[in-house]
């Protein structure tokens, strides 16, 4: 049996209490919140455990808990940022919470991006729509130790200009000369003053044609985008082992008990959410 | 020819002529006394069909399987009279067209299983009318009589005890031909109308809510009670509702496909005066 993450007296379902210290509206229905631990011991535990790629269960008592990634990087671990779209009961409640309100966090759970293995390599980040948050967490983890990596390229697309999230950060990345940022919106989603690309992510990616040699790709997005972008990456010569992605299945416990996130024998909550494309290919595709 | 043989050969005919694409009926089960739903699509497989007094399940719910009727082809289904009535209600509630359903009708009386004349839902109108009259004079179920004699408090305790065994597996809903909602009210969480927990309150809420949703729609086929792994006599609740609906509105659900849903229609002569 594997080593326990808990002591036997501990209640694995009890979340930590968080203060909401900042909020930012990113796009229609999409919001980012910065949370701080109320209990310094919980903060210490989080700092010990958190690595980029992990997720948590964000909650409001009376409504429930909802699963999403930690959008802030491990290099900035004295707070938690999360970005979510208002879509269900819990996210609706979170969306109406205000600075100074309390909420809960349970985690961090799951695996991580093996960032040390990326040292010395070129990095290609590809994200679609609301899936920038998990990618952003890796991007900042790498930018915060920029000298350890080669060329960094970010390809980010959304349906419309309004749907792009982290607009301030996109501007910041655009200004940096050590990052190549390729922004795109779907055809018809552009505004008159849009000066970036128009087209679907896979097409734009193929046009940008980043070199596959010594390069690791991190790809996050809706299932359909992932499917076509993987095909494009293959065309560009990327090996599945060098492409990382995240799966975001429905979860209730986050710790391998409740039984709903399984894809084949894989518990996404424990063995994921970070997988290489090769690992995803080995899963039963019909259950994804 | 036995009724089973009769229907086997009719099913074979219907399938080989291409009149229907599928026959939904009964087959042998995992023990000699069990029957299970079977779906026959080839004329060579009609020998799998069984028809005897153990065939009690109302099969109409299977007609609403996603995509089954979307190609406008016909499906034949084994139905007793309750089954035909549920077919009528499903048509009245715009869930299917009776023209797509061919009825292989039967009646179980004691040990005897007989064929019903007709193959279209409308063919059974007079039989259903007779059943309606019979329903009026039917003596109440033994347990129902006992319940009626109780004080409201005693009755409440009775149902509380019954519902305490409910495990919220939703077999009653899934087996019910009338529970066709794509998303059940209990599965809605914005707002959360019903507690999903299987505690006293949650169970009471669920079972009473379902009984109300079935008032004036239940054909008393018994699928719910047979499916319930906790042996809750759900049919008694539905039966009581049916008595009420028949007594107050002379409404017997499933007379024909044009019948208006009694609790969703309005009449000036409604006995409930408060409506006016």
């Amino acid at each position, binding site marked *: 049996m594997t080593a326990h993450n808990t002591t036997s007296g501990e209640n694995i379902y009890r979340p930590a209490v968080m203060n909401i210290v900042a909020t930012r509206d990113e796009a229609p229905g999409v919001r980012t919140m910065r949370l701080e631990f109320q209990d310094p011991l919980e903060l210490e535990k989080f700092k010990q455990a958190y690595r980029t790629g992990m997720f948590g269960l964000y909650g409001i008592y009376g409504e429930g808990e909802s699963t999403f990634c930690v959008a802030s990087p491990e290099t900035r671990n004295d707070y938690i940022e999360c970005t979510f779209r208002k879509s269900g009961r819990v996210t609706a409640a979170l969306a109406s919470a205000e600075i100074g309100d309390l909420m809960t966090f349970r985690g961090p759970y799951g695996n991580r991006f093996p960032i040390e293995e990326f040292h010395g390599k070129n990095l290609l980040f590809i994200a679609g729509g609301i899936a920038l948050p998990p990618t952003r967490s890796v991007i900042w983890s790498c930018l915060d130790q920029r000298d350890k990596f080669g060329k960094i390229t970010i390809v980010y697309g959304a349906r419309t200009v309004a749907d792009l999230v982290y607009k301030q950060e996109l501007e910041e990345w655009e200004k940096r000369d050590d990052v190549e940022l390729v922004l795109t919106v779907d055809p018809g989603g552009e505004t008159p003053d849009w000066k970036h690309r128009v087209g679907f992510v896979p097409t734009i990616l193929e046009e940008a044609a980043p070199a596959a040699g010594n390069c690791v790709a991190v790809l996050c997005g809706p299932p359909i985008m992932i499917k076509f972008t993987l095909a494009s990456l293959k065309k560009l010569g990327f090996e599945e082992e060098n492409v990382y992605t995240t799966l975001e299945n429905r979860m209730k416990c986050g710790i391998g008990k409740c039984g709903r996130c399984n894809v084949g*024998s894989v518990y996404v909550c*424990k063995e994921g959410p970070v997988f290489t494309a090769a690992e995803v290919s080995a899963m039963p595709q019909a259950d994804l | 020819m036995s009724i089973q043989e009769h229907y086997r050969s009719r099913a074979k005919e219907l399938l080989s002529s291409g009149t229907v694409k599928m026959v939904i009926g009964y087959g042998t089960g995992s023990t000699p006394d069990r029957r299970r739903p079977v779906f026959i699509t080839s004329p060579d497989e009609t020998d799998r069909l069984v028809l005897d007094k153990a065939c009690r*399940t109302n099969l109409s719910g299977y007609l609403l399987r996603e995509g089954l009727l979307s190609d406008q082809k016909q499906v034949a289904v084994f139905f007793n009279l309750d089954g035909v009535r549920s077919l009528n209600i499903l048509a009245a509630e715009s869930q299917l067209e009776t023209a797509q359903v061919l009825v292989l009708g039967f009646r179980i009386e004691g040990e005897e299983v007989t064929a019903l004349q007709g193959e279209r839902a409308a063919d059974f109108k007079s039989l259903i009318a007779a059943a309606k009259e019979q329903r009026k004079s039917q003596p109440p179920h033994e347990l129902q009589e006992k319940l009626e004699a109780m004080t409201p408090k005693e009755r409440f305790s009775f149902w509380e005890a019954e519902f305490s065994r409910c495990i919220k597996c939703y077999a009653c809903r899934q087996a019910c031909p009338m529970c066709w909602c794509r998303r059940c009210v209990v599965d809605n969480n914005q707002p959360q109308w019903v507690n999903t927990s*299987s505690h006293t309150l949650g169970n009471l809420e669920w079972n009473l809510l379902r009984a109300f949703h079935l008032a004036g729609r239940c054909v008393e086929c018994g699928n719910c009670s047979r499916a319930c792994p906790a042996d809750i006599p759900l049919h008694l609740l539905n039966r009581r509702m049916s008595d009420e609906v028949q007594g107050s509105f002379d409404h017997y659900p499933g007379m024909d496909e044009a019948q208006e849903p009694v609790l969703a229609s309005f009449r000036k002569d409604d006995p409930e005066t408060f409506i006016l």
Partner: protein
Amino acid sequence: MATLLYSASLNDCIARWREDGLMVFGPSTAGGVSGFREVEDAGSLDLDLVLTRSTLKELFFPRTEPMLGYRIGKQQIETEEFIPPEGRRIIFGVRPCDAAGMQVDDALFDWDYHDAYWFRRRDSSVIFSIACTHSDAFCMCTSLGLAPDSTKGSDVLLRPLAAGNGWKVEALTERGENALSSISSLLKEGGDAPAPLTDVPVKFDLEACRRWLADPENFESRFWKEISERCIGCGSCTYLCPTCHCFDIQDEGDTYQGVRRKNWDSCSFSLFTMHTSGHNPRATQSARWRQRIMHKFNYFSLKFNVNSCTGCGRCTRECPVDMGVTETLQAISTLQR
């Protein structure tokens, strides 16, 4: 010579345990439905049942269980933890398949994260199993490599005597020994003959099934749709399964105070895996039935080295449309190339 417990002494045993502050549970029938309930005397026990309708798991993993109480203040959230009490329990008259099921779920609830709600009850319970001298058409423990006298998950195994007047008693764990020592004066020594165990025929070749299930080619076989065509998508097979452990977490109350609960949930339900976006990885009933079979006989065993089925047969016994593990695995056995 063996240690014997005569039926005539059982009432005194129960009384003794209760005097010692233990709660005694066993198979009993209420409202026509059998299950494990607390009993005060031997007369309330239904020890002749082949198997109770509901399973032993309810004593460790209730249908609905309060986990946390919460009260929201202006600058703080108070929570109260409803970790189950440590009250010691004797569970008498368990069938070996049910006892084995608890051991299956121990692996899951201890996997990296230790679930105190499960283990507080596990650690305070002593399971007295009775080997089976009767079975019915649905029993299939032998197909799962178990037997009517399996000891897995039990603390004490009782073997019925041929005369029908008691049991030969064997402690299997320290916990079992302790529970026996408190009733030692009520136990007798004797050479009474044990009753023959029931003969449960092997119904399918588990290893052949597992080979078929492990072959990725079969994942999208037409077989899954055909075998599950009549499934109505209720949760009775999962809720009456001793090893099915899936759950939901639900808050009841308002945003000021209330209770967070752990409720049974089922992979048979279409909403179980539905994403908020509307995408559902297991959108059809056949995909859900496949998941249930694959999880029990392939995935779970890969992870925990044990099948998540102990052959109690309740899935088929109680299925409204006469489906179940047995039929599916029997059919898979015949699909072997």
